[in-house]
C-alpha cells in the first residue's frame, strides 16, 4: 500500500513566522503535490514537483515555496505566515508520467495562523 505521511496533523503558528510542512511518500513516486482545502472551495493546487529539484506552480502559489531535495520528500514553505493561510494542507503523490495514474493523499495538516 502506498503511504503518504505528513509531519503534523495540527499546527498553530503566529503571523510572520516561517512555516515548514513536510510530506514523505514511500512508493518511489515521481510526482508530488501540495494542495490547500478551504470550505466551499474544494482543493486548490499550490505547487507540484515531477522530479527531484523540479517544481511547477499550481493555481495559487503566491506566499508559498516548495523544496524537493530527495525523491520521497516534498516540503511546503510559508515564508511569512499570514492569517489567510489558515487552512487544511494536503500532500499527494503520483506514479510516473501516464495520465491514468491516480493520486495518493496524506492525512492532511490543519494549520491555524494567529
Amino acid at each position, binding site marked *: 500500500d502506498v503511504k*503518504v505521511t505528513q509531519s503534523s496533523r495540527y499546527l498553530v503558528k503566529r503571523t510572520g513566522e516561517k512555516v515548514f510542512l513536510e510530506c514523505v511518500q514511500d512508493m518511489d513516486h515521481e*510526482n508530488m*503535490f501540495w*494542495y490547500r482545502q478551504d470550505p*466551499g*472551495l*474544494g*482543493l*486548490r*493546487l499550490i505547487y*507540484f514537483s*515531477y522530479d527531484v529539484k523540479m517544481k*511547477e506552480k*499550481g*493555481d495559487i502559489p503566491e506566499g508559498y515555496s516548495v523544496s524537493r531535495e530527495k525523491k520521497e520528500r516534498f516540503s511546503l514553505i510559508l515564508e511569512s505566515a499570514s492569517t489567510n493561510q489558515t487552512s487544511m494542507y*494536503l500532500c*499527494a503523490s*503520483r506514479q510516473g*508520467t501516464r*495520465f*491514468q495514474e*491516480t*493520486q*495518493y*493523499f*496524506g*492525512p*492532511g495538516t*490543519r494549520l491555524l495562523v494567529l
Partner: protein
Amino acid sequence: SQQGEEDPQALSIQEGENATMNCSYKTSINNLQWYRQNSGRGLVHLILIRSNEREKHSGRLRVTLDTSKKSSSLLITASRAADTASYFCATERENNFNKFYFGSGTKLNVKP
C-alpha cells in the same frame, strides 16, 4: 474558474437507498476522477474514467462521463452508513499533466 462543480452540495439518504452525485467541468479533459474524504482526513481515490470512456463500474460504484455535456455522475448503490463522507470530482486537463482541478464536493450523509 477552471474548477468543477458538484451537485448537490449536500445529500441525506437512508441506508439501502442509492446516492447520485453530479459533477460539471469547463474545459476538455484527459480524465476525471472521483475521491472520497472522511471528515478531517485525506482523500481516497475511488475511480478514474478516461475521456474516451462513457461508463465505469467498481463494486457498488458506477461512474458515467458525458464529454459533450462536460459532466459526470457518481452513483453509489445500496448505500451504507460507512459511505457517509464528502465526495469530490477532479479533472485533469488535456495536455496538462499533473494539473488537477477539484470541485467543492458533495457531502453525503447516510442514515442508519
